[in-house]
């Protein structure tokens, strides 16, 4: 216990812990909307597309102000590229016979490919401070700085404010887009607003878990939370809590274990939370359903034998 206190009071660990917890809560909460709209993989498209934005922002910043590594600039680039990838996927769906899953794959390949190409350009070009960029691909929570933390908190706050202000609009739109349109919450407006909110929640997680595993932060807390509740309010709060919990536990575990990367450990913890939820959630869990079925069988046997059930 003392060792744990020692850890938490350590300045670096505290920064990392705070950063990953914010990311876990916000991406978990907003992932619920992606999950309910069956667009969880959009999180994967956005996180991969973000690389193009990060690399492009780095190059532009290097050329304009001389150094490229400003977290705010990089994440703004990431968010722009994320939004662009979604717009692109929607455009493909609207103007072709390709369905959403295909369009998302195309968008991911295109933007990620572009990102890798630019990363190559950065590797071979005359850029300084480029070594930090790889952190966005595989995640390097230990490298989170105070400056990173500030940007993460800023983006997270904006995403949460968007969510709270537009709560009923997002809710109705996710449940019944037709009624939403009829009452005057135009899809033209709601869709981009919701997407931007989700994109903000995705790009802040890149440095914590990396763009490859980021999708887990979008999908896992939501799918776990869905098992325990029947209200959207409950689901979003619980998903946020699961995300935050996994971030705290995962970060501490990886620090205690020493040379273990934080992102994968967080994802493993998330997976455990999902497994427990799928098994033991009341009503929806496998165990509860199995017990119910057994009770039903007993009941029908008892009544067929003429005994009171």
């Amino acid at each position, binding site marked *: 216990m003392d060792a744990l206190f020692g850890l938490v009071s350590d300045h670096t660990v505290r920064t990392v812990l705070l950063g990953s917890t914010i990311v876990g809560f916000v991406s978990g909460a907003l992932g619920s909307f992606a999950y309910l709209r069956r667009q969880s993989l959009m999180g994967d498209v956005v996180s991969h597309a973000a690389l193009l934005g990060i690399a492009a922002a780095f190059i532009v910043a290097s050329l304009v102000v001389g150094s490229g590594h400003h977290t705010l600039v990089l994440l703004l680039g990431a968010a722009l590229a994320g939004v662009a990838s979604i717009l692109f996927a929607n455009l493909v769906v609207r103007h072709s016979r390709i369905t959403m899953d295909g369009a998302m794959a195309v968008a991911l390949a295109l933007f990620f490919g572009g990102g890798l190409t630019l990363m190559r350009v950065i590797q071979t070009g005359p850029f300084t401070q480029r070594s930090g960029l790889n952190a966005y691909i595989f995640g390097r929570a230990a490298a989170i700085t105070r400056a990173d933390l500030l940007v993460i908190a800023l983006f997270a706050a904006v995403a949460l404010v968007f969510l709270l202000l537009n709560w009923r609009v997002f809710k109705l739109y996710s449940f019944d887009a*037709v009624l939403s349109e009829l*009452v005057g919450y135009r899809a033209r407006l709601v869709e981009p607003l919701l997407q931007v909110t989700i994109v903000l929640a995705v790009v802040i997680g890149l440095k914590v878990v990396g763009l490859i595993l980021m999708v887990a932060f979008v999908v896992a807390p939501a799918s776990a939370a869905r098992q325990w*509740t029947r209200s*959207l309010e409950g689901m979003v709060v619980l998903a946020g809590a699961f995300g935050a919990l996994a971030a705290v536990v995962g970060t501490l575990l990886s620090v205690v274990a020493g040379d273990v990367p934080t992102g994968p450990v967080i994802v493993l913890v998330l997976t455990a939370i999902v497994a427990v939820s799928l098994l033991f959630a009341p009503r929806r869990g496998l165990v509860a359903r199995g017990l119910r079925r057994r009770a039903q069988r007993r009941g029908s046997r008892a009544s067929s034998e003429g005994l009171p059930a």
Partner: protein
Amino acid sequence: MITPIGCEAVCEARCLSVSYRDALVLHEVDFSVPPGVIMAIVGPNGAGKSTLLKALLGLLPPVAGQVEFFGRPFREVRQRIGYVPQHASVDWDFPTTVYDVVLMGTYGALGWFRRPGREQRAASWEALERTGLTHLADRQIGELSGGERQRAFLARALVQDADLYFLDEPLQGVDALSKHAILAVMRDLRQSGKTLVMVHHDPSTVRQLCDWVALLNRGIVASGPVEHTFSEENVRRTYAHMPTAEWFGQVA
């Protein structure tokens, strides 16, 4: 250029043409609904009944033509128009309760930011009561039967307190109890001066349920009061190549 639309019609469409995926589904439809009736839109499968409803409500952009409600464009009077969709259109596993779904009917009047208050909650309970769903208010929406789901969506439209209701096959696949409840609410609404337009799949019950009818097959074949318009001749023209006699045997 555009002649003013008579103020007596609660809904009037002129020369409405709608295409769906490159194919023209409705061709130059003129459609008008008088106030205070229950009107059926009847026609064979693929006649464009649901498409007409969606085009009227602006859910499908028309290729040509114009629609007015109470003499105004839809966006100015959307609060006065309720819609009960065909029931397959939402995710029934969505984490929301029956009460919550009904409360959503108040969102439109509240606008983007205002929260539902005591008045909206009371209206939701009243709508649940009218549709006989009070005891199911706390259920997750997916736990309801088909008929109960349909009633929940009707309750959601009731909460809106509209003057004109569009219902897309409200009686399709619905148990007897729900059918009874839905019809009672519809008649009740007509009684209080509201207008109802429903897509209806069963021509044999039109005379019994409705007082106005539009016969549709890619265009309006005939439209008017049931006793005149719903003639064997008109129905035969609507359902060309289909046996129609038995629908009249029952009411003769």
